[in-house]
């Protein structure tokens, strides 16, 4: 119980859920993403998130910029000109080039080992029965510890509110068997939702199919349970290096070394807490 790094088969069991559904997550297959941003709008409509500044960023068609306290889905647009390494058709002696326009809908990774959760002093950030990572708005006190802890820069404080917000994987919908709003809307099934084990198998198949068709650049990201966050609950099929999409190439849970540091402190805290609890129990029985 309570590992903070390395493979972990059952995070919700580890977090004390006796009767628990399968761990669910997102598999975002960017090879079929058409960059429509339905995920962004469906998310905001369902979660009634505030709209943000209307600013043309100049970063291709990405006017969202990044994930944040009011943006739980963010579609990145990457324009690249690729040298095909063969003579071009223009007859000017130059190599042929090809324009590629990559699109990818980013989201909270719902890490198997979530540093945001580990550092949260209030118990606002929890592991849910579905294996996801959730900020509990009624608990969060806006301390902000979680923000630097996230290796992906996902979670943030909402201006004017102060509390931290991020993707909930539509916790309220999961409870009644609905899919998250983004996956429900996604026109091309770029965002797939389901039991994580099934998604991982699907992703392996899809990757093999793309490799068979000569799409050599295709790769999975966040799919490996042995990676620095113990595998992500939201993983991706990318068509280029993660950095190209603005994703860290080798994220590591920032609390990996916490256990040794906190062991003594935790023991002390528990002793105090135990004494307080005993006092209450004693009073009740009186």
């Amino acid at each position: 119980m309570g590992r903070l790094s390395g493979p972990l088969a059952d995070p919700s069991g580890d977090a004390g859920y006796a009767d628990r559904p399968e761990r669910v997550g997102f598999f975002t297959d960017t090879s079929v993403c058409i960059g429509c941003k339905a995920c962004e709008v469906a998310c905001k409509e369902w979660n009634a998130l505030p709209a943000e500044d209307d600013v043309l960023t100049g970063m291709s068609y990405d006017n969202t910029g990044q994930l944040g306290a009011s943006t739980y889905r963010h579609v990145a647009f990457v324009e690249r000109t690729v040298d095909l390494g063969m003579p071009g058709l223009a007859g000017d002696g130059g190599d042929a080039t090809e324009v590629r326009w990559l699109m990818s809908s980013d989201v909270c990774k719902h890490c198997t080992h979530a540093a945001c959760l580990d550092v949260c002093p209030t118990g606002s950030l929890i592991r849910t029965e579905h294996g996801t990572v959730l900020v509990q708005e009624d608990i969060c006190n806006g301390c902000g510890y979680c923000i630097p802890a996230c290796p992906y820069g996902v979670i943030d404080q909402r201006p004017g509110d102060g509390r931290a917000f991020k993707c909930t994987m539509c916790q309220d919908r999961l409870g009644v068997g609905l899919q998250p709003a983004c996956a429900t809307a996604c026109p091309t099934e770029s965002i797939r939702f389901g039991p994580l084990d099934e998604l991982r198998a699907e992703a392996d198949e899809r990757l093999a199919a793309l490799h068979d068709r000569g799409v050599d650049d295709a790769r999975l990201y966040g799919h490996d349970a042995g990676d620095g966050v113990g595998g992500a609950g939201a993983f991706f099929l990318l068509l280029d290096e993660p950095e190209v999409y603005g994703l860290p190439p080798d994220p590591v849970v920032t609390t990996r070394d916490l256990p040794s540091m906190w062991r003594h402190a935790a023991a002390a805290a528990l002793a105090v807490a135990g004494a307080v609890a005993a006092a209450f129990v004693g009073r009740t029985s009186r």
Partner: protein
Amino acid sequence: MGLRDVLAGWPLVRQLTGTDGLGRGAAARSGRTDAARPRTADADTVTASVCPFCAVGCGQKVWSRDGKVTHVEGDPDSPISRGRLCPKGSSTLSLVTSPSRVTTVRHRRPYGTEWEDLDLDTAVDMIVDRVLDTRRRTWQDTDDQGRYLRRTMGIASLGGATLDNEENYLMKKLYTAMGAIQIENQARI
């Protein structure tokens, strides 16, 4: 709720007595989290509809409560859209509940500099006055070659591509009987 229940609900107690020793899951759940349920569960009605934007014709489900639309989502039963919506379709709730929607009649007098209020019933009567007057003044029975016309060239209309078939039908039927022929819609432009 007895005190024991209150106590048992305390995260710390749950943490110490349950299986969530580090207090990062079951023991730390708040009341709000436990009570979380989709707002669609509180709807009075769920209505089958069709997306009003482009012509793909995606199925929509419209949830409403107390006479207000509370959510719009793709209808998974639709063989056209299979429950999916684009960003515009996904924004339908904002469209139909937008605070920017005008909900009262506005009237601008000829040469007026500001909008004025007008009662809906009065507005329709005023429009009827103008239709009949314009029609009378611009009526053509025949042209200069003696050909039969039976029309007015004084009343034009543009619109229809976002309207229902039934609405277009009444428009064309009424305009034609009225003798108005410059009836057009987005399909042209």
